């Protein structure tokens, strides 16, 4: 099986502009930054959440807390995906009770990751509200889950993969559509 790159969906500048817009949307819809916190889903949701928080600093001058969540233990497909899924640490140092939490991830696909993330969050307490922010929504949902804040909606086929490459993790900054061909 070969993996070929079909198209570039976003450049570094486009990613940056999109995150700026998402930061504005979140602050607007939340009526400010009170009780607001971002939770980045490992791995690529984490740098995205940090960048959105940084953008919010420019809007409201307020430091919005950012936590990270590793959803491995909450997956429903542990035995199918990897015999030993390597665990990363979650790091949420603030209390989630009564908070307005925004989950941040790179790509929304089946919705199973978000289902797992919500299970993880509710083990920490009872947030007032949980919403979802993703850079790309590629469709093919298997759960009744939608994003409230979406960078871009992309129509994809089952064999295609969207790769969000971020400088913090991948040493490059762009979003590409790749395809698996036999």
């Amino acid at each position, binding site marked *: 099986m070969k993996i070929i790159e079909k198209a570039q969906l976003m450049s570094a500048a486009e990613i940056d502009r999109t995150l700026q817009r998402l930061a504005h949307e979140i602050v607007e819809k939340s009526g400010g930054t009170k009780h607001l916190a971002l939770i980045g889903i490992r791995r690529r949701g984490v740098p995205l959440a940090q960048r959105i928080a940084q953008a919010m600093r420019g809007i409201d001058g307020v430091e919005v807390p950012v936590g990270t969540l590793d959803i491995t233990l909450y*997956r429903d497909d*542990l*035995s199918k995906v990897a*015999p*030993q899924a*390597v*665990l990363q*640490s979650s790091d949420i140092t603030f209390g989630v009770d009564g908070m307005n939490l925004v989950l941040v991830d790179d790509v929304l*696909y089946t919705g199973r990751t978000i289902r797992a993330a919500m299970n993880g969050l509710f*083990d920490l307490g009872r947030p007032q509200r949980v919403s979802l922010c993703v850079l790309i929504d590629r469709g093919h949902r298997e759960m009744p889950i939608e994003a409230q804040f979406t960078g871009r909606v992309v129509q994809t086929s089952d064999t295609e993969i969207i790769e969000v490459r971020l400088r913090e993790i991948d040493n490059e900054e762009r979003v590409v559509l790749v395809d698996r061909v036999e």
Partner: protein
Amino acid sequence: MKEVVTYRFRDLLALEPLSAAELTFLLDQSKPFQEIQRHPLKKLATLRGKTVALAFFETSTRTRISFGTAASRLGADTMNLQAEASSLKKGETLLDTAFNLNAMKPDCLVMRHAASGAPDYVARHLDIPVVNAGDGTHEHPSQGLLDALTIRDRKGTIENLHVTILGDLSHSRVARSNIHLLGKFGCRFTLCGPAMWVPRELEHIAPGTSIRSVYKIEEALEDADVIIMLRVQTERQHEPSISANDYIHGYQLNAERLKRAKPDALVLHPGPMNRGIEITPEVADGPQSCVLEQVTNGVAVRMAILYLLIAGDAGDGTHPAAQSPGTPTAHNRRATDRAADASVLKGKDC
């Protein structure tokens, strides 16, 4: 591409055969479970539908409760076998008992036995992962791991420390697991206790590790970074032992003696403690004592062990590591490299 180190054994029978990288992986994987101990809701569904058999052919309180708690916090069910209530008393062989437990289809067997090597023997005949929860005077791997985790949390490292182990070393599987683990990180050891409890053979159990025996506690504590206390094990002693008064006089860890160690030296004890015998309450409850952290970390370490050994089983009874179920295989079988294929983790995209 950087090689990803994972735990690739099917069982956890001993720490001796593990590399420093594999041990570090096990300690790192315990960290997320330490966080879960601090959550208001501590129960996960990760191992829902899985069953852990706890077979304690030798009495245990802490380790059995710790493994049971670890299993239930992962969402697994447990089946319990205790020596006093078991058919072993009625003459059943160890292997028959193991086969009968296995016939109830657990996904993992956690086992303690008075005979060194018993878990290894059972593991060679079963097709499920076996965890050694202490075998005779051989090893107690989960205790070695939780001690190392406790030391690493407090000191920030487990490298190149001077570790003093005090007490009944001849009967101690805890000491052996500690030496095999910490020795791989450059720690050097001073063993101390009454002469009949400190066999010189111990100095050679981990080639490449500096181990010396001394018989005076003052000398043993000099310059120590970590002091690991061992319980006086009356149940494993056949020869005449030292009187309590003589032990207190010669080997009790009290505040005065503790001053000889480094000012930030840690005091560990696997429990149960004999307060007033091997350790004074002042030291046991003092700021250098880690005994309760050890207990908390024990649950996290055991959650990590059960998670690593059970998650990833295809659910049809064939663990990826069990290449030919039912047939005896080599000591400490390695899983197939499927486990190391970290690329499947990378393309999460869902």
